[in-house]
């Protein structure tokens, strides 16, 4: 599979402060990649370098086989800025028509595009009257113009309600199926809802982790928690049998490594007649994300 976006050893400083250090990544056609990081981790800077809005200090960037910001690259790349803003005096329809003309597309398709992002009812109202979520949809509509090969989306789901967020990921699935490469950023793992093929975690301008969610889960090797509810009066027996367990309120809490999970469960199973219930709680998405993003940057 050919790579639509390739970055190797990219470094960028702002006034002596390192914003990005030795960042390498690639995004293939049809792949959905999430770029995660705290505020200030370098996500927006990385995106602006990819778009050619700011120049890098060193390293190589190839966008659809061209240099970033090159006319050929710009013709194939769509961008959704963080907190997309537009001129408040224009209507959504006028704004999208403008962007379609700039891309050499027939502006008569603007209404269909707005319909695709659920904005056709408000298309002829001024953007000044739109809510944040509606402005975000205008931003999304302009990013869909003319079948881009690469979509660079900066926190696309911020300001969207859960239903719109779901619709948004449906749209992305369709675009990726048509062969578009997608790079989207977020500051929380829960926001990307694990609906991407690969995750990149940026912390303090460095790439600290890369892989699919199961891979990252394995690599993080965070402990599994078990919450055991004892049948009345048997909790002391269980505590004696499981020396790691501690009493938290009426329940007994136990943690173990991923490798020890089955063995621990087997031991709990031997206490079957004393255990009322057991919950096995894997590490949450937030836990995994915090594990990687704190390891290096802070």
């Amino acid at each position, binding site marked *: 599979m050919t790579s639509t976006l390739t970055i190797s050893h990219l470094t960028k400083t702002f006034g002596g402060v390192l914003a990005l250090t030795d960042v390498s990544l690639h995004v293939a056609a049809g792949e959905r990649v999430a770029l995660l990081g705290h505020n200030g981790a370098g996500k927006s800077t990385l995106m602006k370098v990819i778009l050619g*809005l700011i120049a890098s200090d060193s390293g190589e960037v190839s966008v659809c086989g061209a240099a970033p910001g090159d006319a050929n690259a710009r013709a194939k790349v769509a961008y959704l*800025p963080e907190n*997309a803003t537009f*001129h408040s005096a*224009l209507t959504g329809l006028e*704004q999208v028509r*403008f*962007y379609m*003309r700039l891309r*050499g597309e027939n502006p008569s398709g603007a209404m269909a595009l707005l319909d695709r992002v659920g904005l056709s009812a408000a298309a002829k109202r001024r953007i000044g009257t739109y809510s944040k979520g509606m402005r975000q949809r205008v931003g999304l509509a302009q990013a869909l113009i003319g079948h881009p090969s690469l979509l660079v989306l900066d926190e696309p789901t911020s300001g969207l309600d859960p239903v719109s967020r779901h619709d948004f990921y449906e749209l992305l699935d369709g675009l990726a199926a048509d062969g578009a490469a997608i790079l989207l950023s977020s500051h929380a793992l829960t926001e990307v809802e694990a609906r991407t093929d690969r995750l990149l975690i940026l912390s303090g301008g460095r790439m600290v982790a890369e892989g699919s969610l199961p891979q990252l889960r394995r690599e993080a090797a965070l402990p599994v928690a078990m919450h055991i509810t004892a049948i009345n009066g048997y909790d002391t027996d269980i505590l004696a049998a499981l020396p790691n367990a501690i009493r938290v309120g009426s329940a007994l809490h136990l943690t173990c490594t991923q490798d020890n999970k089955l063995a621990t469960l087997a031991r709990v199973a031997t206490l079957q007649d004393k255990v009322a219930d057991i919950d096995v709680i894997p590490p949450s998405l937030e836990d995994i994300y915090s594990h990687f993003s704190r390891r290096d940057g802070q």
Partner: protein
Amino acid sequence: MIARILATAITEAHIARRNRWVLIAVVLMVVFSLVLSAVGSAPSGGLGADRLSVTVASLTSLSVYLVPLVALLMSFDAVAGEVERGTLPLLLTYPVARWEVLAGKLLAHTSILIIALVAGFGAAALIAVLNDPAAASGFAALWRLTWTSTLLGATFLGIGYGVSSLARRASGAAGLAIGVWLGLVVLYDLGLLAAVVADDGGTFTKVFFPPALLANPADAFRLFNLTASQATAGTAGVGAAAGSIPLWHSLVSISLWPLFALGFATLAFRKVEP
């Protein structure tokens, strides 16, 4: 290329219409033109010139002040506003060159200016012709005033885009634009006038004064229109020295100024990092 310039022009026209700029420019030009043609019509009998030619002389003085002002007011927000709203980064990721963006804005703003000029001058001409059938002989002067006003407007639109790019904030750009207007249109002339009076027909008046007039787009515009219509006698003081400057000098100046101004705007816009 043409499609992208037109796309920007259409969008800018929508914005100007919504922000009432079209209306403001037209009303300003019409009201001031009518007032001037009413005031300027009183002494026409004594001068022996047709009524429209006299009106054009008055309109020339009006345009020197009003056209640069309207042009700067329309253009100061062009780049700084995009930077402040945060719309510039997205625009620059589109396959459109920066000069194409400026060209589109220029096309829209110049068209609005032409509409305002035609409305204002047209109203004044209509009144002149209705009152004096011989006024039709002044149409050549009116046509000259219209196209030179357009060039003057384009010059100050370009200066406005440049100032807007340098300031990067709409409030700063507005202040700079007013400063440019005061400097080039008001203070420059006052300075020259003071120097001419102090010099009393000496070296300054003969050697430095003519090029100084040509170097300023507003002065070159006034000079060209007054020289061409041989109305310099009516403008006391400056007239004597101005009469010695050939017509083609001021023509070259008013033709080159829009190019200089747009070159300056393009260079300044190129330096803006989103």
